[in-house]
C-alpha cells in the first residue's frame, strides 16, 4: 500500500474533527453546554452521535479480524454489541434520563444518598474508561504501522493530541456534532469498499480460495461456555459504559431517550453487516492474512489486496479514515465522560477543571498503551465489557428497579465484581493466551452473578441503611415527565 495514503487519510480526519469541534465552540458557553449539551440535542443527531461514539476500534477492525480467525463463533461479538443496546433500552434508558444526573457517580449518589458510594463509583468509572481507551490507542498504533510503516506510537500519540484539543476546546456540544459526523464516516468507510470488493469479485468470476467453514489457523472452536460468557459480558456490559450513559442525559425527556435508543439499534444493525462481510470475504479469499498474525488489519488490507491499483489505494484511504474516526470518536467520548467525573469529584466542577481533567484522562491510558502490546482488539474490549458488567451494571440495575439497595450493599457488590473480574484479567495477562483456562479468559459468566449476589445479600443484611429518600427518587426515575415541560 502507498504509505502517503494512510497519512493523508489521518490528517484529513483529524482536521475535519478539529474544525467541527471548533465550530461547536461558538455555541457552547455555559457549564451545562460543556457537560451535556444542555439536553437539547435532537434524537437523530443524538442517535448518530451515540452510534459514532460506540463503534470503536473493536467494532471497526476487531470484529472483522476475529471473524476471519474464528468464523461463526465471532459473529456473537456484533450480535452482543447490538443486543447490549436492547438491554440498555429495556432497563436503563428512560429512568436514567429522568434521574436528571450528569454522570454515573451523580446517579448513584442521588439514589443512595451517600458520598462513599459516589467515590467508589467514580473510581470504577475511571478504571473502566481507561481500560477502554487503551485498545483504541492500540488500534491507532496498528493502523499507522500497517498503512504507513511509521512506528506505532505515532498513531496513539496523534489520537490523544486531537482528542485533547477538541474536548478542551468545545466540550460535549461540539463532541455531539463530531460524533454524529464520525458515525456516518465510519459507515461509508466500511460500506463503499466492501461493495466495490463484492462487485469486483462477482464481475471477475474469481472463485473462493477456501470455503467459509475452513478454519485458516486451526484455532480451537469456542465451546458453549465461552459463547454464553461473552454474551453475558456484552449484554450487561453495554449498559454500564460511562461514555454511553452520559449520552442519555442529552435527551430532553425519558420518552425521547427511548426513541433515541431505537434509532441507535437501527444504526448499529446496519453498521455491523459490514465488518461481518469483511470477515467472510477475508476468510474465503485471503485466509493467509489470518495465518500472518495480522487478522485485526484485514479491514485495512482487503481493498489493496483484492482490488489494487489506484482504486485500491483510494478505497484503502477511505478505510483508514474510517478507522481513525473510530479511534477518535470513542476516545473523545470516553475522555469527556471521564473528565466530567474527575473534574466534579476532584477539581470542583469549573470549566478549567474540566479541561485539566480531560488532559489527565487521555494521557494516563496513553502511557499504558505505549507500555503494553496489542492483543486481539475485539477480545480485549470484550474483557472491558466483562468488567463493566460486573461493577457498574449491578448498581445501575438494582438501583433503578429495587428499593432494597443500600449504600453498603452497592459498595460491597462493586468491590467484589471489580476484584474478581480484575483478578481474572490480570492473571489472564500473566498466564498468556495459551496458558489461561477458559473460565479465566471469559470471566463474566461467574463474576456478574457474584457481584449481583453480594450486592443483594449485603443490602438485605443492612436493611436499616435503605435511604429515606428512596420513595422520592424511585418516583422520579419511573414516572413520566409532564408533556411539554422541559426541566431547565
Amino acid at each position: 500500500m502507498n504509505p502517503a495514503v494512510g497519512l493523508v487519510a489521518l490528517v484529513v480526519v483529524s482536521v475535519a474533527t478539529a474544525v467541527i469541534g471548533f465550530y461547536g465552540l461558538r455555541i457552547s458557553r455555559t457549564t451545562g453546554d460543556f457537560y451535556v449539551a444542555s439536553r437539547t440535542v435532537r434524537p437523530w443527531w443524538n442517535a448518530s452521535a451515540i452510534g459514532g461514539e460506540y463503534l470503536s476500534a473493536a467494532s471497526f477492525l476487531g470484529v472483522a479480524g476475529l471473524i476471519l480467525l474464528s468464523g461463526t463463533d465471532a459473529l456473537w461479538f456484533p450480535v452482543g454489541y447490538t443486543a447490549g443496546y436492547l438491554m440498555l433500552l429495556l432497563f436503563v434508558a428512560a429512568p436514567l434520563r429522568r434521574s436528571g444526573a450528569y454522570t454515573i457517580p451523580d446517579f448513584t449518589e442521588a439514589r443512595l444518598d451517600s458520598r462513599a458510594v459516589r467515590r467508589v463509583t467514580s473510581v470504577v468509572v475511571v478504571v473502566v474508561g481507561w481500560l477502554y481507551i487503551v485498545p483504541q490507542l492500540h488500534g491507532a498504533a496498528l493502523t499507522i504501522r500497517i498503512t504507513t510503516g511509521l512506528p506505532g506510537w505515532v498513531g496513539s500519540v496523534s489520537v490523544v493530541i486531537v482528542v485533547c484539543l477538541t474536548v478542551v476546546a468545545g466540550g460535549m456540544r461540539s463532541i455531539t456534532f463530531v460524533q454524529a459526523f464520525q458515525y456516518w464516516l465510519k459507515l461509508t468507510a466500511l460500506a463503499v469498499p466492501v461493495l466495490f470488493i463484492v462487485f469486483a469479485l462477482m464481475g471477475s468470476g474469481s472463485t473462493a480460495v477456501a470455503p467459509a467453514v475452513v478454519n485458516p489457523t486451526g484455532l480451537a472452536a469456542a465451546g458453549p461456555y465461552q459463547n454464553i460468557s461473552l454474551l453475558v459480558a456484552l449484554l450487561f456490559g453495554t449498559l454500564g459504559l460511562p461514555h454511553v450513559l452520559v449520552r442519555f442525559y442529552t435527551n430532553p425527556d425519558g420518552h425521547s431517550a427511548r426513541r433515541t435508543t431505537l434509532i441507535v439499534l437501527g444504526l448499529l444493525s446496519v453498521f455491523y453487516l459490514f465488518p461481518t462481510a469483511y470477515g467472510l470475504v477475508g476468510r474465503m479469499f485471503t485466509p493467509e492474512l489470518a495465518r500472518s498474525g495480522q487478522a485485526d488489519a484485514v479491514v485495512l488490507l482487503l481493498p489493496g489486496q483484492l482490488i489494487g491499483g489506484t482504486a485500491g489505494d483510494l478505497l484503502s484511504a477511505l478505510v483508514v479514515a474510517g478507522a481513525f474516526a473510530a479511534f477518535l470518536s470513542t476516545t473523545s467520548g470516553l475522555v469527556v465522560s471521564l473528565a466530567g467525573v474527575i473534574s466534579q469529584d476532584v477539581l470542583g466542577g469549573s470549566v478549567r477543571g474540566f479541561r485539566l481533567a480531560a488532559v489527565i484522562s487521555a494521557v494516563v491510558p496513553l502511557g499504558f498503551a505505549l507500555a503494553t502490546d496489542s492483543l486481539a482488539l475485539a477480545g480485549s474490549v470484550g474483557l472491558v465489557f466483562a468488567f463493566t458488567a460486573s461493577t457498574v451494571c449491578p448498581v445501575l440495575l438494582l438501583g433503578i428497579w429495587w428499593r432494597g439497595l443500600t449504600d453498603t450493599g452497592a459498595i460491597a457488590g462493586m468491590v467484589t465484581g471489580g476484584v474478581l473480574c480484575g483478578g481474572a484479567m490480570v492473571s489472564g495477562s500473566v498466564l498468556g493466551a495459551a496458558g489461561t483456562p477458559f473460565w479465566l479468559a471469559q470471566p463474566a459468566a461467574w463474576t456478574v452473578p457474584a457481584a449481583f449476589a453480594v450486592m443483594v445479600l449485603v443490602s438485605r443484611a443492612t436493611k436499616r441503611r435503605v435511604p429515606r429518600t428512596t420513595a422520592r427518587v424511585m418516583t422520579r426515575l419511573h414516572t413520566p415527565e409532564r408533556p411539554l415541560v422541559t426541566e431547565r
Partner: protein
Amino acid sequence: MTRVRVTAPLSAARPAVQSREAAEESEVGQLFVRSLIRTQLRLALVVAGGFLLVLCAFPLLLAAVPGLAGTLVAGVPFDWLLLGAGIYPVTGLSAWLYIRSAARNEARYRDLAEDK
C-alpha cells in the same frame, strides 16, 4: 464579549415538576408509582426473555437440522446469514414493541395520577 464564570451544580438534585411532587407525597400516589414500576419491570423482563429465547433458538436450530448450516443462500452459507444478519431484525422488533408498550403504561399511569 464578556466572560462569565460558571460552575457545575454539585449534586444531581433538581426541583421536580409539581405533579410528581404530589405523587411522591400521597399514599395513593405511591401505590400508583409502585404499580407502574412493577408493570414496566415485567414488560422489560418479558421482552428480554423473548429476545434471549430467539437468540438461543438460532444456534439450536442450526445444530438440530443437519446440513442447514452449510446450505448456500446467494453464495453465503446459511449459518452466516442467520447469525450475521438475521438477529438484527429481531432486536429492532423487540425494541419497537417495548417502546410502544412502555409509553402506553406511562399514559395509563398519567391518567390515573391526574384523575385522583
